[in-house]
């Protein structure tokens, strides 16, 4: 599911990939009476959250890091449905749409500024040329990591809390996997932030000196 960055902001953040979560939410009266389906949904969501976070750790493409973080957050939403927290799942979907759209659009600003370069290893020190983009990515990343008083905190912490309080096998499994995934989320978000804006410059000097904010 590759596309131009504004298209990614639309389909990966709010509209396309979360349609599956919304379908599951709308159809829960049909399958909700079956404990087997609920168990499979919870395990599927927890493993996807963990899998997405671990893959996001090792990507070197700026858009792929953000895309795998979306995959991880979708796992959180599906897991929340699996432990019966339908309202929290929709709340996380809503919050995720906002900060992930912000992250994708800011990533588009970075990619455009350095002439369509997407490799994290060839960026660096862009905080001088792009302070506004840096601030946007910082706010989006803090919300994604679940910093208190930003959006991600309320929904993600709620999902982990419901998992901890559900006292069954999928709740305990989900609690551990989701806590680990939240730690990985913090790691790869900060890694992206450092590699793009704060680390020493690694790329072509002429390209990096001409980088500027979108006008």
């Amino acid at each position: 599911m590759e596309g131009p960055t504004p298209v990614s902001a639309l389909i990966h953040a709010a509209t396309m990939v979360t349609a599956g979560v919304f379908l599951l939410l709308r159809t829960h009266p049909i399958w909700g009476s079956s404990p087997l389906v609920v168990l499979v949904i919870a395990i599927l969501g927890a493993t996807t959250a963990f899998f997405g976070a671990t893959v996001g750790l090792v990507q070197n493409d700026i858009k792929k890091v953000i895309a795998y973080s979306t995959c991880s957050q979708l796992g959180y939403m599906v897991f929340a449905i699996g432990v019966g927290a339908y309202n929290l799942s929709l709340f996380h979907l809503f919050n995720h749409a906002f900060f992930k759209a912000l992250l994708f659009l800011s990533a588009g600003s970075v990619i455009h500024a350095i002439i369509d370069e997407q490799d994290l290893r060839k960026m660096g020190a862009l905080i001088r040329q792009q302070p506004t983009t840096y601030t946007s990515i910082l706010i989006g990343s803090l919300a994604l990591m679940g910093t208190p008083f930003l959006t991600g905190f309320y929904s993600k912490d709620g999902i982990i809390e419901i998992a901890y309080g559900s006292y069954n096998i999928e709740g305990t499994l989900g609690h551990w996997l989701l806590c680990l995934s939240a730690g990985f989320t913090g790691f790869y978000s900060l890694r992206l932030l450092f590699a793009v804006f704060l680390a020493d410059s690694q790329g072509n000097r002429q390209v990096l000196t001409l980088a500027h904010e979108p006008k």
Partner: protein
Amino acid sequence: MVVNRVGDVGVVVAILLCLYHNGSVEYSILLNISSEDQSVIIGFMFLIGVAGKSAQIGLHT
């Protein structure tokens, strides 16, 4: 591309099963499904569709 089609087949089969067993896809009728094995099979078909669309493990790219 293949995983998208697998997910589509899941949703279509789930909708057709709803139609076959209840004669309707109205929510007001589907909310009253009482058969356990019917809700299991429909639920798993919807879950395949969800996994295909929302990139859950097994049907991710």
